[in-house]
């Protein structure tokens, strides 16, 4: 930590902007990892994140799937949390006085349809969120995201154009990597009024089987793939989206080092989400990634994050 603040006095500028929200650095806690309490968000901010996202909130409480809800493998993680959350009413209590967190806090919301989304947005009124992320892309919760067909260009357009009217906050739309023509989905979101794209949610779903038990390990049998396995897919998605839309992108998927973060920026992201790496490198991953980015930028004569955004698209 000491190191990190020391290096902020050097000539490298890590700050960036995401749909009008200024971030001290481009690392953002991804939704669903640790975002269950204000206390945890504070901890992640202290560990160096430029912004944090809460665990997705739905209208009514959701119990989530039975355990195991996560399982690791040699190339990443599967999860089928199933959007366990206490619902928007409880959520609004939990996330009052968000200024205390110290960095911008993004609200993540989910719904079975536009009606749900609008009511959840209502529940956020008066809270200090910096932006809202609408997740249309979970691969493992019946009634939501992919399992409700929300990830097609058509559904995306329909949902976003209504939801857009429900908030004055910057609106991010979170997409699934499972649709090859992700650029089209992003464009649908942009046309419907989104201010930014979060790309991507987990991949798949995938499955792992315990061969002694002769059973899928996750109780829901399948779960979304995150971590290293997802990284090249997420990069390609961000690269494609950058070519398809003008709004900024929050790039998420498999990032665990400063090199990975820079790669994602070069693909076109304005900021980078980090989730699974909280497991592999601890909460300190945010500070470490920033420090690694600074080191690389210094050696490579790069003074600002903005120079990196979309750099891999040079003709």
């Amino acid at each position, binding site marked *: 930590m000491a190191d990190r603040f020391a290096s902020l006095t050097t000539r490298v500028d890590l700050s960036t902007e995401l749909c009008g929200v200024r971030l001290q650095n481009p690392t953002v806690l991804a939704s*669903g*990892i*640790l*975002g*269950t*309490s204000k*206390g*945890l968000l*504070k*901890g992640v901010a202290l560990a160096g994140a430029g912004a944090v996202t809460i*665990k997705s909130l739905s209208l009514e*409480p*959701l*119990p*989530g799937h*039975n*355990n*195991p*809800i*996560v*399982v*690791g*493998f*040699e*190339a*990443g*993680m599967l*999860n089928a*949390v199933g959007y*366990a*959350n*206490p*619902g928007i009413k*409880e959520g609004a*209590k*939990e996330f009052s006085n968000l200024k205390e967190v110290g960095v911008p806090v993004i609200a993540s919301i989910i719904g079975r349809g536009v009606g749900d989304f609008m009511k959840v947005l209502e529940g956020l009124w008066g809270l200090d969120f910096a932006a809202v992320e609408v997740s249309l892309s979970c691969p493992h919760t019946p009634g939501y995201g992919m399992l409700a067909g929300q990830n097609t260009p058509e559904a995306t357009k329909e949902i976003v154009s209504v939801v857009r009217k429900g908030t004055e906050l910057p609106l991010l739309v979170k997409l699934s990597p499972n649709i090859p023509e992700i650029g089209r989905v992003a464009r649908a979101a942009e046309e419907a009024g989104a201010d930014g794209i979060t790309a991507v949610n987990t991949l798949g779903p995938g499955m*792992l089987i*315990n061969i*002694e*038990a002769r*059973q899928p*390990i996750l*109780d829901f049998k399948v779960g979304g793939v995150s*971590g*290293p396995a997802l990284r090249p897919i997420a990069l390609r998605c961000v690269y494609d989206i950058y070519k398809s839309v003008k709004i900024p992108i929050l790039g998420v998927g498999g990032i665990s080092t400063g090199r990975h973060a820079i790669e994602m920026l070069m693909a076109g992201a304005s900021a980078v989400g980090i*989730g*699974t790496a*909280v*497991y*592999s490198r*601890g*909460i300190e991953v945010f500070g470490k990634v920033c420090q690694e980015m600074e080191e690389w930028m210094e050696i490579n004569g790069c003074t600002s994050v903005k120079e990196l955004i979309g750099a891999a698209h040079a003709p």
Partner: protein
Amino acid sequence: MHLEPVMMKIEEVILESNLARSFIFKTCSERSESKSLEYQPGQFIMLWIPRLDEKPFSISYHGKDFFGVTVALKGRFTQRLHEMKVGEWVGIRGPFGTAFNLNVGKACVVGGGVGMASLAVLIERLEDSVVVQGARTASELLYRNRFKDMLLCTEDGSAGTKGVPTDLLEDLYRHYRFDAIYTCGPEAMMVKVSEFAREYNICMQASLERYIKCAVGVCGQCCCNGLRLCVEGPVLDGGTLEKLEDFGRYARRGNGRRVPIGTYLGKKT
């Protein structure tokens, strides 16, 4: 990133009390993947019954080639576990979480109910300790043969002193002048222990219980204010507990809802 359950065979079932059974596993069995378990007293494992659920339990027995858990009957999962017999298989992942710090002089160990499970291996490893166990009634007491010198109290007076273990603390301290207190049990009891420790300026560590899912610090389910019970806990020291608003007050259900601790117990979501 290995975080898969390993199937292990139940080698022995011990009837510990009216409510609790212990299940013993061998760590050097040919078929098991985990040739030995790197464990420190206080840590817990996740126990998986395929197609049912996976739940946290403290390790209550530990040796070179075996370990065990002691399970109190609570609901669906523990019920099914209690029906399992020697030779049946369950999945194990872990151990996870923080451990008790053993570098103390004289110690006092205060256990309540099945909280004794997380203290049992600690007790074996401590060189100089006095142990007091509380339970509702005699038939719910644990490990009476394992720890012969243990002081007992029951709420109904059916064994040992009538009352709760914290009633004895002052007397014990005058007598033993211990340097540290370890505790695990009902949270109300642990709150009292921590108040006592603060008053007498004794270091103390407690093992808390919160609803655990991932056990590896990603899902946020087990949070207690800004701490993850599965990573920064379950063992916390007195200084941390003092600042922990939720301690003795709030816990989160399986859907993340923060409720008064009294209404948390015994409810699933």
